[in-house]
């Protein structure tokens, strides 16, 4: 099996697509009400008996948007992770690196702090995207004159630190234990109770970010030989850099706004894909998006498994899967990278 997937991006893409369909279906079946595939289908197309109208609401208005948002978010985090690693030529890069995730997080906790979240369902998504946008604008200003890789990373670290400090400050002055709890839960990340309204608000920005980044693969591969050589191969490196950064800001900002901060997807997924098809940045993009969607959906299913009291959060599940794997990957790739 692995022999077939090795070195063949298309075999890997097809396998990941099949895996995605399977986990998405499973995600539709599991929850507080567990359904059979037949019940799920009947509820989805809505021709079940009268007494099953409740199931139809669960499937169509709760599980379906949750599955779609999970797929969009996972694909975004996987794709942008692979794209940023290609751009920065650094296997440890991730959407968090350029400060977008943390800044979107800051926007969200401010909305909770000011009570906006209680006033409108759209408050958190809007402030989180505003945070992501602010981070991008600061990044663009800092890196306008010298947009080297180092400047980009340092600017990202600066912006992340600033946003994290802001989050701590807001939490410090949380008006009530309730709102502090809200902030913490949101920071832990979740796909719970997401509706089509959330999808309609975040979806267009996610897709817009994808469109901005479409076709960057060739340039990212050329960058393997350094930016001077990439330029000599006809690649406009400056445009390439901004397309990846702006596309990441849009799509990740929107993703964080709708499912909280979920880490490690953008770090872990490209490493997983490299094990099959090697290091060429262009070949990694699509499989990383698919694998990110699979991983996110899988992690979301795990949050619904019964574990004693309370609910597991998506960000926590991802961190528990991701962090040890990440350390393992560092050990494994240390030799081949040096």
């Amino acid at each position, binding site marked *: 099996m692995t022999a077939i997937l090795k070195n063949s991006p298309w075999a890997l893409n097809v396998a990941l697509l099949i895996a995605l369909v399977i986990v998405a279906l499973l995600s539709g079946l599991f929850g507080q009400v567990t359904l059979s595939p037949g019940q799920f289908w009947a509820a989805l197309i809505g021709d079940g008996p009268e007494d099953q109208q409740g199931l139809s609401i669960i499937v169509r208005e709760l599980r379906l948007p949750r599955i779609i948002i999970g797929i969009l978010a996972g694909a975004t985090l996987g794709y942008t992770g692979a794209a940023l690693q290609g751009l920065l*030529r650094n296997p440890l890069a991730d959407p968090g690196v350029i400060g977008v995730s943390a800044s979107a997080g800051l926007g969200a906790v401010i909305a909770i702090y000011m009570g906006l979240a209680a006033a409108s369902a759209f408050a958190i998504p809007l402030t989180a995207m505003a945070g992501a946008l602010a981070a991008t604008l600061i990044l663009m200003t800092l890196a306008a004159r010298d947009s080297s890789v180092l400047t980009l990373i340092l600017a990202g670290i600066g912006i992340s630190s600033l946003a994290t400090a802001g989050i701590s400050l807001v939490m410090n002055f949380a008006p009530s234990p309730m709102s502090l709890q809200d902030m913490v839960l949101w920071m832990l990340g979740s796909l719970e109770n997401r509706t089509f309204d959330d999808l309609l608000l975040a979806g267009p920005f996610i897709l817009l970010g994808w469109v901005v980044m479409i076709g960057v693969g*060739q340039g990212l591969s050329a*960058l*393997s030989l350094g930016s*001077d050589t990439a330029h000599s191969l*006809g*690649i406009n490196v400056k445009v390439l850099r901004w397309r990846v950064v702006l596309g990441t800001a849009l799509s990740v900002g929107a993703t964080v706004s709708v499912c909280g901060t979920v880490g490690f997807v953008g770090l872990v997924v490209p490493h997983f894909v490299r094990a099959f098809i*090697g290091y060429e*940045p262009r070949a990694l993009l699509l499989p990383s998006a698919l694998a990110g969607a699979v991983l996110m959906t899988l992690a979301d299913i795990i949050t619904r498994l019964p574990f004693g009291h309370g609910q597991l959060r998506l960000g926590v599940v991802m961190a528990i899967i991701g962090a040890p794997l990440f350390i393992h990957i560092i050990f494994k790739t240390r030799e*081949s990278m040096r």
Partner: protein
Amino acid sequence: MNALSVEGLSVVLGGNNILSDVSFELPRGKVVGLIGPNGAGKSTAIKTVLGLVARQAGSAKIGDRDIDAVEPRQRARQMAYVPQGAPVHWPLTAERTVALGRVPHLNPWQALGEEDEAVIRDAMEKTDCWTFRNRLVTTLSGGERAWVLLARTLAVGADFILADEPIAALDPMHQLQVMDILKAEAKGGTGVLVVMHDLGLAMRYCDSLVLLHGTQVLACGTPEDVLTDKNLKTAFGVEVSRWHDGSTNFMTPTRVVG
């Protein structure tokens, strides 16, 4: 056949004059050596021609067409570049690395075609690296890596090759082989501009030389005209010994002078 011509090139970086009024010509079918002491602006000259460094004055043209007016992808098909100490940031296979030379010929969506594969194989056979095409570049020796990067440059199939110190870190055998390959490319109709520090090899392999000194062109012409005792003393501050073996002229620096 069109030549690559540089006229009156001036470059200022961070308030310092790097190049002042530099002119030279690179005809197709010839190897032109760009020589000069460290800091004379050799790399900057190449980067300016490629559009990597902005120029204050002067022009760089292919035929009678200014390079700035050429669309980047087309420019990339006309001029291939070997940067100094060329990095490879990911553990790609040798073949995938060489394949990147085909980027100027493909749109962002296009995969390699049969013709591209043939060019890649040809470039790798010319440089003797086809046999280790599946090895990762990060596991290759310095010499093997130089082959792969040279093959990557040849795979562009450009009219001109601009090579910045391609033999600086290589052992004598690899130095001669790289120069032989560049010479063969020139025989095939390519114009080769090569930055080098080995004056003896420059004399033997280059059809003409451009000697940079203190931001300007000190001398330009055949190796015999350029590598005079006077010029070498002015530019490098060295004296040289010269000898002949049959019809081949040799030269090596022997002493630092005033």
